[in-house]
């Protein structure tokens, strides 16, 4: 005699459980469709527009981040190195190569949830195209490590996972689909402290 109520309860449990869980998971897992992936780097050139897909709109409303307008710049983020391994403060990395055309760029590290990384106050938290040391062919080589390095050094917190953020300011790539032809610098792991 409880057959029908049980079946209704089963259907409702699946509806609300799976529906809610999948929506929350989708909002946490992705910023939306329409990303550009260049090696380990990802950018969302239309995430701030009214053409953004519903997932992107839901994500930006939940995140509350201040996005870059298309004439302002384009933000590339990397969570993995070029070999696909997650970035970790227990390892050191070299960011090597050329950046896409832009008037300026900045590079800094964040925690996985996008907060500034906890590094010592007297260490500068980022690098930019004005102060970075270049090689003779105009390419860059940035050492990312928890300990001080010669040359270009980007400090990250020891032993904690982090993300890399490369912001291109006033770049012709932001508004166009031509971004696919561009090359971003590679992120090569050079060693780990306890491996």
């Amino acid at each position: 005699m409880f057959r029908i109520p049980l079946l209704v309860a089963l259907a409702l449990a699946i509806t609300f459980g799976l529906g809610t869980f999948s929506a929350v998971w989708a909002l946490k897992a992705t910023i939306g469709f329409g990303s550009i992936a260049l090696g380990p780097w990802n950018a969302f050139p239309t995430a701030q527009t009214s053409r953004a897909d519903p997932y992107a709109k839901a994500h930006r409303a939940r995140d509350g981040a201040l996005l870059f307008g298309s004439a302002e710049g384009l933000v590339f983020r990397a969570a993995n190195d070029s070999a696909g391994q997650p970035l970790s403060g227990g390892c050191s990395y070299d960011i090597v190569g050329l950046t896409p055309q832009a008037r300026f760029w900045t590079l800094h590290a964040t925690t996985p949830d996008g907060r500034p990384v906890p590094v010592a106050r007297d260490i500068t938290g980022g690098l930019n195209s004005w102060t970075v040391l270049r090689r003779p062919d105009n390419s860059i080589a940035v050492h990312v490590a928890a300990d001080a390095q010669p040359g270009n050094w980007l400090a990250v917190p020891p032993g904690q996972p982090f993300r890399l953020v490369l912001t291109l300011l006033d770049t012709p790539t932001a508004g166009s689909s031509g971004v696919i032809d561009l090359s971003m610098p590679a992120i090569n792991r050079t060693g780990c402290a306890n491996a």
Partner: protein
Amino acid sequence: MRSILFATLIGLLGAAALHILIILAVPYFTGNDAYTRISDLGEPLRFYPLPNETVAGGGLINDDPEMRLAVCALSVAENPVRLYAPPGVPFWSVGLFDSAANEVFSMNDRTAVAGALDVVVATAVQLNAIRKALPQALSQSILVEMPDEDGYVVLRTFVPTATMDEAARAFLANAACEAIDQGTLE
């Protein structure tokens, strides 16, 4: 057995519908979107420079140590709003967004007249009045039509070296985001 399968199928269909409903409804109910967070900073129609360090309470911060930025919540319901900042930094960019965080307009110092930020944000009706009157004070301004009444502005500047920090802070402190008096339009 068949009825259990049927119930599961109905449940899955319902889950798909609920998933879509939640994704579409989230932007209206988060209370954590950029416009709400900027409105929470204080009075509208003034630029608030954002701190670079994490603040208690999860307020808005500037997460790029090489940039400085200021935000301003605005409404053109009553009067047009003028954004103004004199030149003096190596790079600035401004983004105008509506209250749902859709980009309305963006530009940087390269496209500005003499490197100064001078933008008038208005509704279509207000823009018509401005174009008709063509006041001297706004002759150099870039006129932008706001499809919505409410929105926010993000003003960014680039700080390549620590010595330029002072200039960047002064640039943001001097930036104006203010309603235009109807008197100046006549």
